[in-house]
């Protein structure tokens, strides 16, 4: 009979999945818009907890960044989703989106995030046009390795939102979601919060490969090296934790019926 001994070794942990809400709290969000944001995020939190419980091998961590005249984090550090308590936001001031990108960049630094996290999810909500010089900050943010890996979604609130700026952030027009009334805003927040966290943590059955490698080439028995300039060949999804493609079919259809912002 062989001796059974306890597992030797260091501390184990699930992989962190950082989820960021980045919320425009400028004056134009005052009233119904910020009210819907507050209610929708508060009500979606239990569903995010459920999604997280479906995958105990990923630890969903939440953090919220508000921006108006300046930008600031609501909590000092990321908070486990089950411990996260939404704090109602108020709207006033201008739209310093660049400052929000600066703070995001600080958080997405590899030294801050570590190397073993799952790709982060960033949901940006805005109804207006940046009032600061956001481009420089966005460029700096986009150069970060974790920013490149992040799932980036924007919710464009109302008809005055600058979709071109939001597109610059997401890099994908399909991920600039239109919310022109209260009902759609609530729907989009719910979709972005639950579908995206599920896909990123690998519990979605609809997950498909993050197909960045359309030009991928394959092995050849001859060992042909005709593609020797392909030094930046993108990588393949690694096993086990699921790739990061969203199921675009599940994005709620825009519905402008009723009051339009």
């Amino acid at each position, binding site marked *: 009979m*062989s*001796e*059974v*001994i306890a*597992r*030797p*070794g*260091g*501390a*184990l*942990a*699930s*992989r962190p999945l950082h989820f960021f809400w980045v919320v425009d709290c400028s004056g134009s969000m005052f009233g119904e818009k910020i009210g819907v944001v507050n209610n929708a995020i508060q009500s979606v939190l239990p569903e995010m907890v459920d999604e997280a419980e479906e*995958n*105990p*091998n*990923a630890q969903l961590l939440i953090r919220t960044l508000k921006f108006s005249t300046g930008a600031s984090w609501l909590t000092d550090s990321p908070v486990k989703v089950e411990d996260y308590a939404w704090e109602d936001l108020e709207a006033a001031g201008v739209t310093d989106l660049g400052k929000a990108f600066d703070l995001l960049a600080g958080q997405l630094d*590899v030294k801050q995030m*570590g*190397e*073993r*996290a*799952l*790709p982060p999810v960033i949901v940006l909500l805005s109804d207006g046009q940046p009032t600061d010089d956001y481009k420089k900050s966005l460029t700096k943010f986009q150069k970060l*390795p*974790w920013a490149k*890996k992040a799932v980036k979604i924007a919710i464009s609130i109302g008809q005055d939102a600058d979709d071109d700026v939001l597109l610059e952030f997401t890099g994908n027009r399909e991920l600039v979601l239109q919310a022109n009334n209260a009902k759609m805003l609530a729907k989009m927040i719910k979709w972005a919060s639950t579908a995206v966290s599920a896909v990123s943590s*690998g519990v979605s059955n609809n*997950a*498909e*490969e*993050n*197909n960045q*490698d359309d030009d*991928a*080439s*394959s*092995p*050849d*028995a*001859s*060992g*042909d*090296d005709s*593609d*020797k300039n*392909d*030094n930046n*060949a*993108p*990588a*393949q*999804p*690694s*096993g*086990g*934790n*699921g*790739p*990061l493609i969203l199921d675009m079919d599940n994005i709620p259809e825009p519905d402008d019926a009723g009051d339009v912002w």
Partner: protein
Amino acid sequence: MTPIIIGKSVRGESHIRRNTECQDSFLIIDGIHKHDRSIPFYDEMPDDVKIIAVADGHGSESCPYSRTGAKTAVNVFCDIMAEYAAKYRDNRDELFKSLNREGETTRIAKWIVGEWGKRILQHHKMEKREVLFKENGDADADAIYKQYGSTLLGMMITQGFSFSFQLGDGDITYVDKNEVAPVIEGDKILGTETHSISKKSSWKKTLTRVISFENGVNTPFMFVLSTDGWLNSHSSIDEFNKTCRSYFEVIQEKGLKTVENNLEGWLSETSTMGCGDDITTVFAYFPDK
């Protein structure tokens, strides 16, 4: 300088939850097992040469046959390195020198990637699986390879040196009583992506290293080859290194057989409490002289 080698693969916790198979594979070729592969040059391979390979199939929906891809990758590595060792069986100095030449290791990398592709196509055809076509109507071999995507770690150990090979994620780690260190420092990719043997250009992403034993080594020591599920289940690199050291100490204290008997349970527990991925570890332990 003869190592004792043990290894184990376990199905990851998240794979169990989703009812998907283990996508990892490993193969150990030593004096006992070399005749298991009925390929002539294994008989010509010197008895002191040991070969280890570990592969991690990608496991995503677009890679439904990655378990086969991983199994093929470990077979290809061992077959090619056995053939290579057989070729130099009477000239060990030349074997050592050739594996230190960049041009030669590039040739080996191309050989491995190419041979993998050849076997995958044969397998795909044999299984009568669907042949995919490009828009111009030609058969799309690239799309077939992609369905079998895998990483590959490998090591050949002789009396005088070790040769390590890495394509994609995973870890090859050196452990002795004073040190835990990566044998190959790979270009780690953040998130959930890795380089893959399924790409024609992947030979350019391979990393190799030769470690000579001639100038004295601190026995006992060990090499550990592990899929990324092992490292990713630890809260930090320091904790991973602590685990490597602890395993080394348990091997010294209780013996490899005890570790081998407990390994499956330890790795399953690690996956459950960690990242949930499949885990494979292979230990090549060099006892005290």
